[in-house]
């Protein structure tokens, strides 16, 4: 279906007067808003997409002309991101999460109900152009699945009954806010500028999530310190990055401070795309001031004047909330010029939204994306601390890392090191979901064992625990005495529990493998291809056609992925490799033993089946 290209697209109300505005005028307005700057292409496209609910191919020529870049470069960015579309996606666009946890919590029935009620399949728009149904990777709501984004608003804990009501309301053209009838979530979720039914589910507080945070306390302290002393304090706390890779934060700051450059940048990584992780969402909702204070601290320490908070598209419902906090910070002089009265201390923050891509959480891809390009990780070296955003020295830190540092500054490195273990100091905010009584966010000291965690969250009859999301490890009960720490089970924060009744290979390993296939940027020959071949093998085994050699080959082929450029490709075989290692019997049950190749093909049966399908009588000898 080719969409009609609407000439007059909008009615602009100014006072009593209604003006009709053409599409081209709207697009020009948007481009101007971003100073016709090609490095702001993401923002331009995001605004166009939200204005028209798709990016009409017609406007490409306009953007190309105004930014002086070729069409194909714009297409390159558009076609990379999941939430950009060059065909209409409906007046209402439903994005239903397809993560493993969503399926565990009943996604299948919810999806079927959507299809039945709307009258089209996922990946399509209803014939009247009203409602579009699409699947999407984990949207950061694993503690309240099944969940969907509808026109940017979150609908969590969906049931078939609720889906019927929602579709009825959509068909009645209700405003999206009116359709949220469950009541609003707790804490800041209920603020008018958020107006969301999302729940925080904070179940255990530690120093970061503790009540009684006083905004500005850390800033007032550091403006009396030398930047080098701030870095020394961070180093002394031994804190390491909370985003997954675990790089020592103090060292990162020091390298960046020492890198030559007239301008430097601080990025906060709030892309949180690892399936099963949602703790950064809770921090963004409840502790945004702390986070921004952390960014300003980093700016002071390394000598950066600009901070960029990169937030995943899925958390767009927090935009007004975050903007208000930034505005408030400026009023209080915690952001802006001469912060806390210190003359040479200027720092401000802008928010950069993503548009649906897990790999953009990788720090150099994050920077590429913020420069308006496809989120393709860069070759390293050089590292962002030497050459990052716009080629300048740049720090990328996770949301939680920056918050932790505020506490380090307020209470001191010594205090911070008194928590956790010797090598892993402090606390970790973890996101727990799956088969347990109390899914949600927990702040625990490093050094908790998996058994402690299971007891804490009310999980019994556990078959397996995924620590660190799909790129982490799938462990079996015989390893539940292992501990969460950088030296044992390292995690960016996601812990998923699978009960005894789950089909691990099909519901978990296959789902995770599909996730990596969907999210690869596609630049490396290895990452683009190997996971596809691994999936084919895994499906062969699931269909009882596998032999011993298939398992051996999967392990061999997985090694090739280690030559990929970034962490995505390097870990894309982890679900398969760690399940072969820790759950070998599940594979052994399914394969044909003692055979070199699949010999289960039955000619007579196959002929019978194909004849049945076309109502013919088989003629075989």
């Amino acid at each position: 279906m080719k969409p009609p290209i609407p000439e007059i697209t909008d009615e602009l109300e100014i006072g009593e007067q209604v003006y009709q505005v053409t599409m081209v005028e709207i697009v020009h307005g948007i481009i101007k808003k971003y100073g016709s700057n090609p490095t702001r292409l993401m923002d331009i496209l995001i605004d166009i997409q939200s204005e028209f609910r798709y990016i009409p191919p017609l406007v490409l020529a306009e953007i190309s002309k105004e930014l002086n870049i070729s069409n194909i470069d714009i297409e390159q960015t558009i076609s990379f991101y999941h939430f950009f579309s060059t065909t209409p996606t409906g007046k209402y666009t439903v994005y239903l999460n397809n993560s493993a946890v969503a399926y565990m919590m009943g996604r299948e029935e919810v999806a079927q109900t959507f299809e039945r009620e709307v009258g089209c399949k996922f990946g399509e728009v209803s014939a009247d152009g009203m409602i579009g149904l699409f699947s999407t990777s984990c949207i950061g709501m694993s503690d309240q699945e099944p969940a969907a984004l509808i026109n940017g608003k979150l609908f969590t804990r969906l049931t078939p009954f609720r889906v019927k009501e929602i579709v009825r309301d959509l068909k009645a053209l209700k405003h999206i806010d009116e359709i949220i009838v469950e009541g609003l979530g707790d804490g800041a979720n209920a603020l008018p500028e958020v107006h969301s039914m999302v729940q925080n589910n904070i179940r255990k507080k530690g120093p970061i999530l503790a009540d009684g945070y006083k905004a500005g306390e850390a800033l007032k302290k550091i403006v009396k310190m030398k930047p080098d002393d701030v870095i020394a304090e961070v180093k002394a706390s031994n804190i390491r990055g909370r985003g997954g890779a675990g790089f020592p934060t103090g060292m990162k700051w020091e390298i960046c401070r020492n890198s030559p450059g007239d301008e430097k940048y601080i990025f906060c990584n709030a892309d949180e795309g690892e399936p099963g992780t949602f703790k950064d969402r809770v921090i963004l909702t409840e502790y945004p001031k702390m986070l921004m204070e952390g960014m300003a601290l980093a700016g002071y320490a390394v000598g950066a004047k600009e901070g960029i908070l990169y937030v995943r598209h899925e958390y767009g419902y927090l935009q007004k909330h975050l903007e208000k906090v930034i505005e408030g910070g400026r009023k209080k002089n915690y952001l802006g010029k001469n912060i806390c009265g210190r003359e040479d201390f200027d720092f401000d923050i802008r928010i950069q939204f993503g548009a649906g891509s897990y790999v953009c959480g990788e720090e150099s891809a994050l920077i590429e994306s913020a420069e308006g390009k496809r989120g393709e990780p860069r070759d390293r070296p050089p590292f962002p601390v030497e050459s990052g955003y716009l080629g300048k020295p740049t720090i990328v830190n996770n949301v939680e890392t920056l918050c932790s540092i505020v506490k380090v500054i307020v209470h001191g490195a010594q205090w911070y090191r008194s928590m956790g273990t010797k090598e892993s100091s402090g606390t970790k905010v973890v996101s727990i979901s799956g088969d347990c009584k109390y899914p949600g966010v927990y702040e625990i000291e490093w050094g908790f064992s998996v058994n402690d965690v299971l007891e804490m969250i009310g999980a019994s009859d556990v078959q397996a625990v995924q620590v660190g999301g799909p790129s982490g490890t799938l462990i079996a009960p015989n390893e539940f005495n292992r501990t969460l720490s950088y030296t044992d089970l390292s995690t960016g924060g996601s812990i998923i529990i699978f009960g005894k009744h789950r089909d691990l290979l099909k519901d978990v390993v296959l789902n995770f493998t599909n996730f990596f296939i969907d999210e690869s940027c596609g630049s490396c020959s290895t990452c683009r291809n190997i996971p596809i071949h691994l999936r084919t093998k895994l499906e062969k085994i699931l269909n009882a056609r596998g032999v011993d050699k298939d398992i051996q080959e999967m392990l061999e082929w997985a090694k090739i992925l280690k030559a990929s450029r970034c962490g995505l490709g390097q870990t894309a075989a982890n679900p398969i490799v760690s399940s072969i290692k820790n759950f070998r019997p599940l594979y052994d049950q399914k394969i044909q033993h003692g055979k070199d190749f699949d010999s289960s093909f039955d000619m007579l049966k196959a002929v019978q089946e194909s004849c049945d399908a076309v109502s013919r009588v088989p003629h075989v000898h």
Partner: protein
Amino acid sequence: MSTNGSVIRCSIDGKEYLAKAGKYINDVARENGVYIPTLCNVIGIHPQGACRICTITVNGRMMTACTTPVAEGMDIKTNTSELQDLRKSIVELMYVEGNHFCPACEKSGNCELQALAYRFQMMVSRFPYTFPKRKIDARNPKLVKNYNRCILCKRCIRAIKDEQGRSYFAFRKRGHKVEVGIDVDLGKFISDEVAQKAMDICPVGALIKKEQAFRIPIGKRKYDKTPIGADVESHHV
């Protein structure tokens, strides 16, 4: 850390070399007669490690030789049996990812993928053939873009821009769906020289200049008699 330009000492496959800091490992190796297979790299153009064929180890860690600058004390291994098999498996991956029917290809004999397959003595891919359905785009007045043969090395994307720095070529989509597209509007004005440059820079036969064929006859082509890499290796003894 050594500053660019200063002289550093590193070891390649057990032999010590002096080199200018900041130079790519691949360039240092070549200058010293050590051939590291490359595919997406073009000397003189900003590298972007896409094919991963030049993977080596530096102090035991896998890195790409085309993108990593040498630094003091590096212990570089280019030729272990694991690395050789890795490279061969990448060539095999590329053969099954697209449709490479060498006998029918204009680039045969000048094709770097084919030459590497010969060098690695590839008989058949260890991966299952997928025979994907791919298109051939002949809309451009000067070039035919054959998606069956494209190995997504990004050479054309990186090397060929118009006078204003705008791209003729770029990626579309992501993951296993990525493809290199030609800008339809800008592409209309592509000159003969640029079209020829595009064809020459493509390591395979994915970009073919129109209205000419087999300018160099089979038998007289680059890799017909000497294997790829032989020029580097004969350079030194």
